[in-house]
């Protein structure tokens, strides 16, 4: 029987992989995909908590519906900027846009 802890550990692992991808990928599309991974790990948390903590109200599941909507909106705007960068300046890789000048 998988318990809440199992789901939490899984989501933590996925979140960490997402963060790692965010830092290691050099392609804008790849970075956006890593961020999708992070959103998904949060979704696992929400659904798991809503099952194990308060299954009657489903607050967690409702929250994850909103997370999906927001992830979609962010992906759409992000990809629009990527297209813009590619079309006007022929750039896809983050390296080329001097990202590390922090």
């Amino acid at each position, binding site marked *: 029987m998988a318990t809440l802890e199992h789901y939490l550990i899984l989501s933590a692992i996925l979140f960490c992989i997402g963060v790692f991808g*965010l830092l290691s990928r050099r392609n804008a599309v790849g970075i956006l995909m890593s961020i999708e991974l992070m959103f998904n790990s949060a979704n696992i948390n*929400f659904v798991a908590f809503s099952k194990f*903590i308060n299954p009657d109200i489903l607050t*967690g599941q409702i929250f994850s519906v909103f997370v999906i909507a*927001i992830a979609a909106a*962010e992906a759409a*705007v992000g990809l629009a900027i*990527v297209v813009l*960068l590619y079309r*006007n300046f022929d750039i896809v890789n983050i390296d080329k846009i001097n990202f590390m000048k922090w």
Partner: protein
Amino acid sequence: MNVQIDLSLLYPHLFLLIWALLIFAIDFFMTEDNRPSLGYLSIVGLIITAILSFASDKGTTFWGAFRADTFSLSFNIIFIGSAILTIASAIDFVKDRLKHHGEFYGLILLSTLGMMFLASSSDLLSLYVSLELATIALFVLVAFMKRDLKSTESGLKYLILGAASSAILVYGISLLYGLTGTLTFAGIAEQLNTSFMGGPLFILSIILIIAGLSFKLAAVPFHMWCPDVYEGAPTPVTAYLSVASKAAGLAAMIRIFFEGLHSSAAEWIPLILTISALAMVLGNVVAVRQHNIKRLLAYSSIAQIGYILVAFIAVSELATTSMILYMIVYMFANIGAFIVVITFYNRSGSDEIIAYAGLSKRSPFLAISMVIFLLSLVGIPPMAGFVGKFYLFAAAIQKGYYWIVVLGVLTSVISLYYYMMVAYQMYFKSGDDNSRIKVNPTLAVAILIALAGTLFIGVYPEPVLSAISGASVTLF
């Protein structure tokens, strides 16, 4: 099913939404020459929204998810005020350099709307969604100059880091939800009062929430996007970003931490304390080396958020009042400084500090306004910054945090140096170009409003203080 919707509380929000949609629609029917009037139309809409905000009742609706109180009213005025000043400063800029007028003004209005929803939300879900509404509009605005590589680049940077921070925030929220079983701030506070909450998971959730919101505040160590994005974004958007976006982040922090998590303050105060100290030191020290005025103001805005967080650790009524007061003061001074930068840029096309040499001769009005705004940011009396900082530090001293206040005063002295370097360029250096700079009436009015706000609050802060003093009562 009883319906608990009282739309009369949302009249300002609904009005602003409809007005923004109208701006998008009117844009289609306008000829190229008439487009700038959309800016004036937006300002009119914002002023009516502000009046409606004052006039509408206080109360809760939407099953408790929406709450109009003095706190939300104060922040609404900050958001609307910065949007008005931003749009007033943008009209010339947009006319000369941008193509999509309607989208530009409409997105600023919708971003403001998101922030207004944020200040009124009383659960984590509506807070998160409205924060995203404000932020996604800003992503687009930062990348608005489509033919400008810097703007597009910084748009991508802001989007990636913003989306990542939003994922971090939502992960933190999910943990907090799991631990308390509820999303409303009142429910979380109740849960924390009845059962002791400690443990690594709770701390982790707080760290993640602070990290996610610190991106919006641009506080150290989550400030890396700030200088680049401020430099690359269209300058009016930078002005808006530096005030309204920070105010939104602050409103979210106050709602979550003062309202929901105040009983476990001992857990998160050390974190905020560290962020505040780091922001003040790093912001002020790095600002000294900047050559570009927008980057200088970016680092100074990082330092400013450090000062504001000094009061945050006090977790008291005075803390809330002083932070709102400082945010108002900061709005006038910072947007004022940016309007001067925009006016200068419109004429000279340069943001370099060296280019400001001899500005006192080219336009005495711009030079003296800039000096007043910068002195207010340092906190020199009789400018409003002094009153603001006085209350911020008083809130911290009241709770016995002396060393952070000492640090705040010391770093303010550093800030005096780099702000006055700008003044030195303007007054004691002479540039190659000595032609006079004519200030366009709209920009002049915007600068005058910012000047009036800065000087009035500095000399006579009582009316503002009494207006916002009710803001914190609702939170404790």
